[in-house]
C-alpha cells in the first residue's frame, strides 16, 4: 500500500513554509492595525479642523488614515520581526502558529518585545475604540431629562392594551415554538456533516463539512430581522413570516450547537460499533445519537427561550406576535401602553428562563 499516504520531506517543508507565511500574515495584520490606531490618535489629538471649522468627527478621521502605507509598513516590520526572531523574540504571529521557544517561555512579559507589543496594542484598542464610537460621558451623565418621560410612562402601565397584549403574547410563544420545532429535524440532519470528527473519513465527507459549515455560517451571519423582511415580502406580513425567519436562524444556530456537541463525544462507543461490522448509519445511530440526545434537548429548549425574545423584534417589522403592536405605540409615544407590553414580554421571558433552566438541569 503506502500510496502517497506517507509524510515526505517535501510535505514537511511545505507545511513549514505555510506556517511561516501564516505567522507573517498575522503579524502584518496586527502591526498594520497598531500603526493605524496610532495615526488615528495622533490626528484626533492634533486639533485639526475640517472644512466647516469644527473638530474632525470619527468618521472623517477614519477616512483620512493612510491605509496603504500602514499595510506596507506593517508587512515590512512583520517580515523583519520574523526574519530576526532569534534576536527580537518570537512575534505574536509566530507564537500563535508555531508556539514560543523554550527559552522565552519563562520570561516576564515586560522582558519580551511581544509582551510590550500586546500591551500597547490592547491600550491603543481602548483609546481608539473610545474615539471611534464617540463616547461622551458628560452627555450620558447630564442629559437624562429627555428619557425620563419614557421611564415615567413605563412605570405607569395602562390597562387599555392588556387584553390585546395577552392574546398576542400567546401568539408570540407559539410562533417561537413552531420555529424551534421545525428547526429540530433540519438541524439534526445537518449537524452530522457539520461535525469535524465525523467528516475526516473521505473527500466527500470533508466536502460535506465545508459546504454545510459555510452555508450555516452565512445563514447565521444574517440577522433574523433581515430574514423577517425577506419572508414578509415572500408570504406577507404576519406571524407566518416570523415563524419562517426564526426557523431559518434557529436551524443555523442549532446546527452549530448540535455539531459542537457531536464533536465532543466519546469516540470509544463509535469504535466499538464500527468493529462489529456495522454500517455508517448504524454507527451514528448506536455510537453517536444516544450520547448527544440529552444535550440536544437542552439546547433546543434554550433556543425556544431565545426565539421568544427574538420574536418581539421580529414583530417590530411585521413578523407577528406582540412586537407587532409595540412598534406603533413606540412611534406615537404612548409610553403607558408600551410599558404594559414591555412588562408582559419581560414577565414571559423571565418565566421561560426559569422553566427552561429547570428542565435543562433535569436533563443533563
Amino acid at each position, binding site marked *: 500500500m503506502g500510496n502517497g499516504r*506517507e509524510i515526505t520531506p517535501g510535505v514537511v517543508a511545505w507545511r513549514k513554509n505555510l506556517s511561516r507565511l501564516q505567522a507573517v500574515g498575522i503579524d502584518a495584520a496586527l502591526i498594520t492595525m497598531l500603526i493605524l490606531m496610532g495615526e488615528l490618535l495622533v490626528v484626533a489629538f492634533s486639533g485639526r479642523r475640517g472644512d466647516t471649522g469644527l473638530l474632525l468627527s470619527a468618521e472623517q478621521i477614519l477616512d483620512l488614515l493612510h491605509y496603504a502605507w500602514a499595510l506596507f509598513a506593517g508587512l515590512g516590520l512583520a517580515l523583519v520581526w520574523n526574519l530576526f526572531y532569534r534576536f527580537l523574540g518570537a512575534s505574536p504571529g509566530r507564537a500563535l502558529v508555531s508556539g514560543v521557544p523554550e527559552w522565552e517561555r519563562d520570561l516576564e512579559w515586560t522582558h519580551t518585545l511581544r509582551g510590550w507589543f500586546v500591551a500597547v496594542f490592547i491600550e491603543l484598542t481602548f483609546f481608539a475604540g473610545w474615539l471611534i464610537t464617540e463616547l461622551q460621558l458628560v452627555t450620558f451623565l447630564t442629559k437624562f431629562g429627555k428619557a425620563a418621560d419614557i421611564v415615567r410612562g413605563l412605570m405607569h402601565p395602562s390597562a387599555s392594551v392588556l387584553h390585546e397584549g395577552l392574546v398576542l403574547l400567546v401568539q408570540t410563544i407559539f410562533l417561537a415554538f413552531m420555529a424551534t420545532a421545525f428547526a429540530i429535524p433540519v438541524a439534526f440532519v445537518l449537524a452530522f456533516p457539520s461535525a469535524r470528527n465525523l467528516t475526516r473519513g473521505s473527500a466527500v465527507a470533508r466536502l460535506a463539512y465545508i459546504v454545510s459549515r459555510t452555508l450555516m455560517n452565512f445563514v447565521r451571519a444574517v440577522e433574523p430581522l433581515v430574514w423577517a423582511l425577506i419572508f414578509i415580502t415572500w408570504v406577507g406580513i404576519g406571524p407566518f413570516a416570523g415563524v419562517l425567519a426564526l426557523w431559518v436562524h434557529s436551524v443555523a444556530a442549532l446546527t452549530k450547537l448540535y455539531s459542537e456537541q457531536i464533536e465532543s463525544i466519546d469516540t470509544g462507543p463509535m469504535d466499538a*460499533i464500527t468493529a*462489529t461490522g*456495522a454500517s455508517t448509519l448504524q454507527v451514528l*445511530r448506536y455510537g453517536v445519537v444516544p*450520547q448527544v440526545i440529552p444535550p440536544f434537548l437542552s439546547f433546543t429548549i434554550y433556543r425556544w427561550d431565545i426565539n421568544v425574545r427574538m420574536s418581539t423584534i421580529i414583530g417590530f417589522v411585521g413578523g407577528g406576535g406582540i412586537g407587532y403592536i409595540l412598534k406603533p405605540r413606540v412611534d406615537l409615544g404612548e409610553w403607558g401602553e408600551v410599558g404594559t407590553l414591555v412588562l408582559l414580554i419581560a414577565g414571559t421571558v423571565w418565566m421561560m428562563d426559569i422553566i427552561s433552566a429547570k428542565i435543562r438541569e433535569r436533563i443533563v
Partner: protein
Amino acid sequence: MSADPAVRTEDLGMVYPGGVRALAGVDLEVREGEFLAILGLSGSGKSTLLRCINRLIDPTEGRVWIFGEEITAASGGALRRLRRQVAMIFQQFNLVRRQTVLTNVLSGALGRSRLLPSLVLSFAQSERERAVASLGRVGLDDRAGSRADTLSGGQQQRVAVARALMQEPRLILADEPVASLDPALRHSVMRHIEALNREEGLTVICSLHDIDLVERYATRLVALRDGKVAWGGRPEEFDRDTFREIYGEEAEPASNSGF
C-alpha cells in the same frame, strides 16, 4: 477449519499524521485457535497493532489478511463483512453508557442486521434470545434492563464480552481488557475470554502488560518494543531476565498484585 491463518500481517507499519511511528515492519502469523498475548510497555504499539488488524486504523504500510482475505484491500461492504468475523474488546469497555445492557449486547449483531429495523432499535426475536443467552454466559442476564452506566467496571467489561460473543466472531481482539479493572476482578473477565478460546475455539489476540496473566492464559506470546516484534515464543520461556533484556533495567515486570 481452513488452512489459512486467522491473521497474517506482512511488513505492517503505521506512521500517525504528525510523524509519530507506532509500528514498523511487523510480520505476524496467528493460527486459528491460538490465544496470542501481546506484551509491551505503553506506547510500544500494542493498541495500534490490534486496531490495524480490523482497520479501525488504516495502516500506512504493509498488508493484513483475516482468514486468508486481505482486509487492507477491502472497502465498503467487503470490509464490513470481514469485520463481522472479528470482535473487539476495549480497555475502556466502550459501551454506549445511556443505553440498556441488552441493547449494548444486541449492537454486536448490527453487522448481520437489516439496516432500517436496526435504526429504530428493532431486532428479531431470535437475536434478542441470543443476546439474553450471551448475557447469561457472563452471569449478567438479570441486569439486561439496566442502563449500562449503572454497572461496575468489571460488569461493564463482561457486557462487552457478551457483545463480542453476540457478534459470533471467529477472532477476538482484546486491547488491554483488564487494565482498567481492579486486580481482584481481572481473572473474572480473563476467564470469560479464555472460555471463548477453549470452548468456542475462537482465536484470541489479547494485549496485556501483566506477565502473570500472560503465563496463565496465553498459548503464545509476542513482545513489542518501539513498534517492532522484539520477542516471540511460548509464554513459559519468557522469564524476568528476558523481560529486562527487552525493556531495559528500568522496567520491572508487572505482577498480579499491582502495576
